């Protein structure tokens, strides 16, 4: 891998930028690998990267049915935070946050991680009580968090409607200053490039059509580009988790839903932080190009179609205009839908399975992007050691049988 640096920028500029090498190879799949990762999104690529980096397992293939980062990795609102209520969840997301903080240097790829802060607004007395509880829980877990008043919000985010006669008046917020946003495509490309440099084969246009098992153990996968053998298979395919699970005879506590998001026409700088609201249910930030990046809730029905219903769009825009009346004339430029894999307790599954050598990483639901490095890190550990790390041990499949759920539904900073 050629190192990217200011010097390389200058050097390539002198040759009119015609000599840049490809960021990762496009190899033909080999017949056999030590580990096969199914799914070339951010989580899958991060898993391959940390398998190579932390565990020295370099004979790895990442199989992607479309193109790298073309699924939910490129279909989110790029918010990164770790202010979850329960200890299990907050430690997992905080581990991810710490990896984010050094990620651009680690990958030698600018993922444009911008710690511009995330405000989670409270609109009712109960919201504010929940916020105080969550902020205290975060601080006990060593995560930065603070409660801010409506006056502070009015000062720091001047365009937000903090008037007392709003239908959902802003009473205050929680603020995590280390939270922010990152460039989603760069995260996929950066992990792909860094994994490739360590010997990982990234194989695009290669859909897994079957999971081969012999006497209770996985031995490989059938793909549209032939059979690929491997003693360990890690599946991290977000919305399609149930489909892959069915190939291995498993059933998961997951439902797939469309989640829509929007980008507006570019504006002059108007919002230098991230604002989320549970009660009016929307979240917004402004990208470096000036576009507002807006998201809200899932469509109610099960769906794999990467699009949702119009009334969900309307609901999202109502929330935005309620919070920021100044945005009422802004036109939306693009809209897209990703497929989110929602778990009953709004927490992920990063787990071994009843099938030997088969591992699942799924159920991140509406909040998987922020977890990308941490998810890959713990999943790589789980695959390499055939047992979970203490950070993801609570997130096993067994919790649905034992009842030890981690109920972040409503407890986390935003409704799911």
């Amino acid at each position, binding site marked *: 891998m050629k190192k990217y640096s200011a010097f390389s920028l200058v050097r390539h500029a002198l040759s009119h930028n015609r000599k840049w090498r490809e960021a990762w190879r496009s190899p033909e799949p080999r017949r056999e690998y030590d580990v096969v990762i199914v799914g070339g999104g951010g989580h899958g690529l991060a898993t391959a990267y940390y398998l190579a980096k932390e565990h020295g397992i370099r004979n790895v293939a990442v199989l992607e049915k479309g193109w790298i980062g073309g699924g939910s990795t490129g279909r989110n609102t790029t918010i990164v935070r770790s202010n979850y209520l329960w200890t299990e969840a907050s430690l997992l997301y905080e581990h991810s946050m710490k990896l984010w903080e050094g990620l651009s240097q680690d990958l030698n790829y600018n993922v444009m991680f911008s710690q511009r802060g995330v405000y989670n607004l409270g609109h009712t007395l109960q919201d504010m009580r929940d916020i105080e509880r969550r902020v205290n829980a975060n601080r006990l877990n060593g995560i930065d968090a603070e409660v801010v008043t409506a006056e502070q919000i009015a000062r720091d985010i001047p365009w937000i409607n903090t008037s007392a006669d709003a239908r959902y008046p802003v009473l205050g917020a929680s603020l995590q200053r280390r939270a922010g946003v990152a460039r989603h495509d760069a995260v996929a490309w950066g992990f792909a490039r860094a994994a490739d440099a360590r010997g990982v084969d990234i194989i695009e246009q290669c859909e897994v059509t079957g999971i081969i098992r012999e006497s209770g153990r996985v031995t490989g996968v059938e793909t549209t580009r032939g059979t690929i053998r491997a003693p360990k298979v890690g599946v991290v395919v977000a919305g*399609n988790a*149930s*489909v892959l699970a*069915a190939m291995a005879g498993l*059933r*998961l*506590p*997951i*439902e*797939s839903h469309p989640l829509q998001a929007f980008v507006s026409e570019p504006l002059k700088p108007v919002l230098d932080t991230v604002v989320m609201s549970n009660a009016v249910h929307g979240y917004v930030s402004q990208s470096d190009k000036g576009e507002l990046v807006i998201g809200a809730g899932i469509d*109610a*029905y*099960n*769906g*794999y*179609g990467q699009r949702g*219903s*119009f*009334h969900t769009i309307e609901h999202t825009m109502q929330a935005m205009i309620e919070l920021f009346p100044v945005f009422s004339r802004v036109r939306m430029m693009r809209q897209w839908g990703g497929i989110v894999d929602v778990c*009953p307790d709004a927490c992920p599954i990063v787990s071994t399975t009843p099938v030997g050598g088969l591992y699942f990483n799924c159920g991140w639901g509406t909040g998987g992007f922020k977890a990308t490095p941490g998810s890959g890190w713990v999943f790589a550990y789980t695959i390499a050691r055939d047992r979970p790390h203490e950070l993801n041990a609570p997130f096993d499949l067994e919790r*649905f*049988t*034992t*009842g030890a759920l981690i109920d972040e539904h409503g407890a986390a900073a935003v409704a799911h």
Partner: protein
Amino acid sequence: MLLIECPWCGERAETEFSYGGEAGIVRPADPDALSDAEWADYLFNRNNPRGAHRELWNHAQGCRRWFAVERDTVTYRISGSYRLAGDPGAGDD
């Protein structure tokens, strides 16, 4: 937006309905007789298919009845609405 046919009221906009998830999940008659794994399977596990899906909808802003819809989860095309077992005019649902 989906155009959903309520078997009682006819075609209405999706916003009149609320979604009830996978159809055909029957509460076990004797939960005490189940193992934890069987109970978890009933409670949490879902088929979540990519393709044909039989699901429950409630005409919340209309007749307030539950019924089943067969819908494709990729194309979102609805192929039929059905009254639930026990309702007048129901099939074998």
